[in-house]
């Protein structure tokens, strides 16, 4: 999944360099939402913040 997110961002960057800002920002949005969901998936452990 992380590989897919990196790939999406790389495609967004190439699209931006080619001059299509709208599509690039759309791809950024998709990859950002995926990254946020993936972070949420990984933060299931209970935090112990005191001894």
């Amino acid at each position, binding site marked *: 999944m*992380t*590989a897919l997110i990196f790939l999406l961002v*790389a495609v967004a960057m190439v699209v931006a360099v080619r001059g299509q800002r709208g599509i690039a920002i759309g791809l950024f949005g998709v990859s950002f939402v995926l*990254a946020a969901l993936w972070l949420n998936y990984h933060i299931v452990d209970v935090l112990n*913040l005191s001894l």
Partner: protein
Amino acid sequence: MASLVRLGNAVGAMGIAILLLAAFGIQFLQGELPCPLCLLQRVALVLCGFGFLLNLRFGVQPLHYGLAILAALFGAAAAGRQVLLHIVPGTGAYGSALLGLHLYTWSLILFVAVIAGVAVLMIMGGRPDHDRSDHQTALRFRGSSRFAAWLLIAVTLANALNSFVLCGPVDCAPDPMGYWIAKYLP
């Protein structure tokens, strides 16, 4: 002042690419494999770089800075979570320390620094480049700006390949001991 802001964005994009290369150095030279939260911090770094890249390609605009700040907040959340996981004495740590701090702590400091850096660039930037045509901004997208953009793209693609080799197509082990692809190699 506009050229200084442009240089600041190029330095930001290039700096992020160099940091990601340094992370590769630690991974391959010291043999420290990144955990899922570490990979998400790398994702946040490239997303920050995307904001700088948009400024280099389309001219400085608040929207691009907003994307960089959003990405930095995401990175700070991932790094902050990892710092809190190990903040109680005796709960261990992940990876080795660099100058007394672990990489996730440096990462948290870095994301706060990105937000501060973007704030400074926005203060220096003055009026946004809305009035410039795409042709004008495209003409200025050369030299160090172009190099920084393509370096960032190359490093992002390298990270995609690295994540696939390390974790496979779906999930990554919380404490990876080896590369996923190694299971399929003779």
